[in-house]
């Protein structure tokens, strides 16, 4: 008989199985929540760039968005008029090209090089305007006021993205993604273009300076310390208390099992 089979009735076997299960759950969660990306470069226009972008579009995008970016009903939206900023946001965060049509495209490693993204953006912009990719000066954090940014974020962003940008759930599998890995340019582009279900905050509603203030709040909040040691989505001590409570509850159950166990009594 193999040793593991022989010991399955050991008094400690039950505890070992519970602990093993918990560890597996924790490790698999940690394994599926990783990934990073970023890409920035200058925006250049020109016929050569547009034709390069057209080539990339036909290879990477046209199967869903159509040969002329006109979109496919029920699958992919039309890209005419969405602008270079929308393309840069979607591709530089790795959301596009998409692997499959899902309710919410997740952030994933970037598939294209920065100059390819800019060529693609130039091609989409050539089809019908739309907001351009914000410049480095547009997203500069010099002189940004995180206090004003917090007021604006709480008024218009926190309902979906959580008050420290941890993200949250929407309907039918859609969700507001966490802002923990977004670059200042990506946050600016998201406000400007309203990706997926997100509302649009154009530059005459939320001015570029106010956008820089919001970006300052989002990025500076990431550096805040986590007194509990784990951030748990930065949703505050309630969650940490709940996790501690559940962990200690499990400990108490195991302790109660041990105290009343039949094995190893002095006088049976």
């Amino acid at each position: 008989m193999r040793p593991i089979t022989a010991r399955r009735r050991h008094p400690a076997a039950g505890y070992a199985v519970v602990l093993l299960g918990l560890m597996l759950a924790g490790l698999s969660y940690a394994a599926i929540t990783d990934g990073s990306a970023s890409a920035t470069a200058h925006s250049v226009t020109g016929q050569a760039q547009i034709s390069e972008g057209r080539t990339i579009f036909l290879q990477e995008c046209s199967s869903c968005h159509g040969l002329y970016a006109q979109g496919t009903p029920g699958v992919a939206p039309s890209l005419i008029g969405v602008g270079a900023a929308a393309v840069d946001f979607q591709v530089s965060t790795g959301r596009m090209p998409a692997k499959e049509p899902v309710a919410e495209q997740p952030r994933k490693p970037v598939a294209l090089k920065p100059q390819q993204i800019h060529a693609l953006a130039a091609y989409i912009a050539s089809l019908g305007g739309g907001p351009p990719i914000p410049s480095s000066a547009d997203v500069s954090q010099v002189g940004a006021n995180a206090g004003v940014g917090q007021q604006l974020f709480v008024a218009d962003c926190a309902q979906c993205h959580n008050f420290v940008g941890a993200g949250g759930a929407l309907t039918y599998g859609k969700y507001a993604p966490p802002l923990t890995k977004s670059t200042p340019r990506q946050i600016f582009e998201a406000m400007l273009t309203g990706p997926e279900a997100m509302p649009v905050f154009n530059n005459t509603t939320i001015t570029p300076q106010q956008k820089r203030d919001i970006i300052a709040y989002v990025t500076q909040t990431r550096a805040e310390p986590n007194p509990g040691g784990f951030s748990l989505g930065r949703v505050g001590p309630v969650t940490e208390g709940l996790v501690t409570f559940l962990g200690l509850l499990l400990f108490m159950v195991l302790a109660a099992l041990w105290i009343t166990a039949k094995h190893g009594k002095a006088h049976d």
Partner: protein
Amino acid sequence: MTDSTAGPQPGDNEPTGDLFSDLSAHASGAGDEPAETRHRVIGTPPPAEARSLLKTPPPGAPGGPPVPRQRELPADPDDPVSAKRAERVVVACFLIATLAGLGFIAAYLIFQVHSVTNVLHSNLALGSTMGLAFLALAVGAVIWVRRLMPTVELTELRKPLRSSPEDRAAFAETFEEGAEASQFTKRPMVRRALIAATVPVALAPIVLLRDLGPLPGTKLDHTVWRKGMRLLNYGANTPIRPADFSSPGGMITVVPDGFQDDFNALAKAAVIIIKFAPNVIEFSARPEPGKVVQNWTVDNIVAYSKICTHVGCPAALYEHTTHHILCPCHQSTFDAARGAQVIFGPATRALPQLPMTVDAQGYLVARHDFIEPVGPSFWERGPS
């Protein structure tokens, strides 16, 4: 050996002097020694007869205690080797608890608390040492109980609760004597004054209930929105032109001009405005369910109360692709293109629409207040 009641003298039939010595003395038939010379384990109560004021009848007599029985508990664990091992573990646990307790005192002295970081370290050290001390004590106690103490079921017979007739008569007599001696029955002025003194004290908490008021009156029926009041972009606190709020799919929170810092007013008056593409909104000329009042919109911009009609959370999770407004608290969902009618969740009424127009300078202003109370239902609001 100066204390004659201290216990057995050398040479007595008490080789160990342990917890079970009384019982082993009884069991061996040598239990005729007087009660005063018995061992008492430190911390346990004295024998029952030593505390009783009444004379106890001799064992076996009617009303007296039962005759001492044969021993109920075994003297020692079955397996001495295992018991010895358990003893060592228990001692180790208690030693750990001792060291952790000393560590707590040391941590208190070592970690000073003059900055936030130091407080963190101090809390961690104090908490972990105290936790370890309690845990080690508990583990040691449990192992002691499980491995060294006997596990035996005992049956204890119930006695009648009613006191004897003599005791009852004696109590009644004592009570009457006391009442008489206290002058309570003889001096009615004192008695009545005492009763009068208790009445206001008992009424005082009832008077405090007044602080729950005053009644809200009609305050819940309307908000601070008035004719011509500008809609301010909340946070920036700037007025809004329809030409600026021009991108379809846009949504922002707005507040009434002059009340941007009045949180009591904003609790009811917060509003979201949503910009639609043409031909998406279902309009009607007059207020009706599932429709947007066309006169109250400007250039496909609609204003709704931000206060959920369920329990008043800020309902402002707006998906521009589906034009759904979600409430984050209980997932009530409203269709912004159809008069914010409820399409999911526990809310029962649509979000009220704020009537809007533009003023002479071209800024968005309110036409007048909401035509119905905003937010959750309340008693005086009536049905629907």
